[in-house]
């Protein structure tokens, strides 16, 4: 196995054992970011109760960093209020993973975008702006 690979052990852990993979059966919001042509697409679905993200799932087509950032963002927002979740920045995701190679920082941006898109969808369904 790569001893000095492109990613640190935390990123590799999330790549090997991604948390919260899949699609929620009855989601309150679903969002995507990226597109397959660029080589990254993330989909996040959330279940919200009393303004708290009770459950969250992701599916990602992308590189190791894309999978790890998706996994990490689901961990960071689970059981958080919508406002707390919205405060999770791409930088926070990358930091929680112990850092990403500079060329992979865009993956953390996608993770943030997919999450925001899911929250937007939730608010739309709630009839809120």
């Amino acid at each position, binding site marked *: *196995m*790569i001893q000095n*690979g*492109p*990613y640190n052990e935390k990123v*590799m852990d999330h*790549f*090997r054992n*991604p948390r919260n*993979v899949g699609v929620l059966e009855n989601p309150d919001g679903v969002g*995507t970011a990226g597109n*397959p*042509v*660029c*080589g*990254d*697409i*993330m*989909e996040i679905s959330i279940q919200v109760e009393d303004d708290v993200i009770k459950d969250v799932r992701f*599916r*990602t*087509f*992308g*590189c*190791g960093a*894309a*999978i790890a950032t998706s996994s990490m963002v689901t961990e960071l927002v689970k059981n958080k209020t919508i406002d707390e979740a919205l405060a999770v920045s791409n930088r926070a995701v990358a930091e929680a993973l112990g850092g990403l190679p500079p*060329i992979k920082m*865009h993956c953390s941006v996608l993770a943030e975008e997919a999450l925001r898109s899911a929250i937007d969808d939730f608010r739309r369904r709630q009839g809120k702006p």
Partner: protein
Amino acid sequence: MDTKPIYLDHAATTPVAPEVIQAMLPYLEGAYGNASSLHSFGQEAKAAVEAARTRIASFMGARPEEIVFTSGGTESDNFIIKGIALSRRDRGNHLITSSIEHHAVLETCDFLRKQGVSVTLLPVDSNGLVDPDDVRKAITNKTILISIMHGNNEIGTIEPIAEIGSIAREHGVAFHTDAVQTFGHIPIDVNELKVDFLSASAHKLHGPKGVGLAYIRKGMKITPLLHGGDQEKRRRASTLNVPGIVGFGRAVELADASIHAESSRQSALRDRLIEGLLSSIGDTRLNGHPVRRLPNNANLSFAFVEGEGLLLSLDMEDIAVSTGSACTSSSLEPSHVLKAIGVPVELAHGSLRFTLGRDTTREDIDRVLQVMPGIVHRLRAMSPLVRKGAVS
């Protein structure tokens, strides 16, 4: 895990053969002379260099004086293309090459384009083949060089070099082939291939890194890239890399001794790998020509997943491969070669290149076949593209 690491990235580089190391050692230890020196230290080094030159020339049907040692494939490509563009400036300013060349050729052509040289990039068909007729049609009275690679480094397609060579000769245009991937892997004869220039690199055939060659047909004038001393008949200044050249010579000798047996052995393993992957994993396609391909190259695209995830997963199994995509480089663009053969971009992102070597065994291939379905399955289970129907 107690398994033996499996290296299937021989197109990137190969392990140096123990015999090559043994051949090089005397020239790193005692025989350290400069091959240009007149004393016995220098002459000993010079004799070793000339023996390697003769050995390599005979392997490729060339004369020893037609071989210029360089630092590798990239330098040879730069030297030949820039050298011809400069030496034939008064005859024309048009180059013909293909869209699937190695970056050492494409970027060199691009550099020359910025200097006012015009460049025709020929397309390839869906198998990666250049149509010799396209070459013929592209030739103008300003064309000074045609450069078409022998075997493609990504998809393994072997180009119709001899046919293109005939066309180049009919029109009196110089012809170069980048043979970095074929040299030492399939028999090469510069007269049968009808090439005037050829690039090769030692480290792709179990030789050392940092040494290669430029074949320059007798009578072909070329402007040097490196100016300085009189080495290599003033075609390439710089103290000769004596241990490297000796190692290159020994590597060619070893390759020559088993070239037919190895190319058929590796071709059989390659086909076992390709057929095994295509039959055990759905929505998978082979890239490159099904038959006219390098004996050691298998390049496949796995729909709905991304190549780097596959690469990392295989690495966790101690299997080293390469992605068809440039995901880990500074560019996020998928491979220009896969694009040129018409692989849809999202599919190109899910490509892997397996390249075999002399050290590859049937057990290695079978272990890849054993782990790949599970790896692809795991990543597909995570992929949002799966439900959107077949990509291929």
